[in-house]
């Protein structure tokens, strides 16, 4: 029996391999992210200074929504062809499998968002001095979101209208992330210390990363049975 870290890395490799074989599925959430962030300045036709004020919120809402988009497929394809049940039946710990999937999801969506966020930030008139805080807050927030989303995806796998329910479940849980993440970026833009908000984000991240694996595993056991 492989140890947990080894198990996670095997699963990570599998998930990443599968994801990269469907590059369009990889890119879609990122493109969605870019499009949504464009919608706000287009729709509101604001001056640069006002844009800078809304930028953190817009960035974060877009990140939330595009992460949600890719969450639906977290368990879906494996559940559809029965692989998920095989994984549950295999001697391997289901928590390890869930952890592998959640981390893979974050690498592919959240981490990717962090990488392209400077581009989007510039488009939203965020000053480069705030980029550091922005990227750290996005990294912490999207990691937390991947885990919250894993719980939601596990609860709704196989349901009709599962994607609507998924959003309904995950978004209220993700609201504190939005508040602190946008708050941190906001403070960085205005020059004050974002440390408080970042600490809160970090605390939420740690809390979620430690507890969510068990919640998501329990959820999978309930929905798979």
């Amino acid at each position, binding site marked *: 029996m492989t140890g947990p870290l080894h198990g996670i890395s095997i699963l990570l490799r599998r998930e990443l391999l599968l994801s990269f074989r469907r590059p369009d599925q990889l890119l879609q959430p990122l493109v969605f992210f870019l499009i949504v962030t464009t919608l706000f300045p287009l729709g509101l036709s604001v001056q640069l200074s006002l844009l800078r004020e809304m930028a953190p919120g817009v960035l974060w809402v877009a990140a939330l929504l595009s992460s949600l988009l890719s969450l639906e497929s977290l368990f879906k394809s494996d559940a559809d062809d029965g692989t998920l049940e095989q994984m549950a039946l295999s001697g391997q710990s289901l928590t390890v499998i869930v952890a592998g999937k959640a981390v893979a999801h974050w690498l592919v969506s959240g981490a990717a968002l962090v990488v392209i966020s400077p581009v989007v930030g510039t488009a939203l008139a965020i000053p480069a001095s705030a980029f550091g805080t922005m990227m750290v807050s996005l990294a912490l927030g999207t990691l937390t979101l991947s885990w919250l989303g894993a719980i939601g995806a596990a609860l*709704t796998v196989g*349901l009709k209208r599962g994607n609507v329910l998924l959003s309904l*479940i995950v*978004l209220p849980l993700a*609201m504190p992330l939005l508040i602190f993440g946008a708050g941190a970026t906001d403070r960085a833009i205005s020059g004050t210390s974002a440390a408080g908000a970042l600490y809160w984000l970090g605390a939420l991240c740690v809390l979620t990363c430690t507890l969510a694996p068990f919640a998501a595993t*329990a959820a999978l056991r309930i929905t798979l*049975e």
Partner: protein
Amino acid sequence: MWTWFYRLASPPFVYRVAATLTPWFLGLAALTIGYGVIDGLAFAPPDYQQGDAFRIIYVHVPAAWLSTFCYTIMAAAGAVALIWRIKVGHAVAAATAPIGASFTLLALVTGSLWGRPMWGTYWAWDPRLTSELILLFLYVGIMSLRPAFDDPARGDRAAALLSVVGVVNVPIIHYSVVWWNSLHQGATVAKLGKPSIAGSMLWPLLSMFVGFMLFYGAVLCIRLRGEVLVRERQAAWVREAVKS
């Protein structure tokens, strides 16, 4: 003592006892709420700062308290049902959800109406108001998740898990006024020791607290009987119980 505990897990026992308790809960609730409303509206002296607008406290604060109280019960009942596989727990959780959601809505509405004269705005995105709104969304999510499954037992378990995950929000609501600079005022009643509110204003408030909780007990008993019936349709005891 443990036999009493075991009986709590028995659906026919719960069905019978709930029927007996309902009129008591309802009667006591009517008395305490009636006293609270009359004393609070007519006899409590007006607040020196807010005048008569402060009387909204007599519905707003008990409603808000009940919104988190019900959520906690719902999550606890769900957890008990998940861990010890006691189906009655799911029935309690399912029965409590709409009650708690309605009180959350009441808290938000009355709070908004109170905010206008007190702070000049119907709404503010401050931590307590926001987390109470999140609570409403959590209730809606849980109530939507439960019926989404073909197998109702599975729906019960999924909803129970979700309510446990969301229980993190409850301490955030309570402590938001402590942790952050909030528009919303801090604790006046729940402070141990001397509450910072006058006695003549306090008694009707306490009565409303008790009254709302008794009322919750009454409505819970009614709903619980329905939820138990729904989950035990084929059982033999149902035949006897429903005939009467």
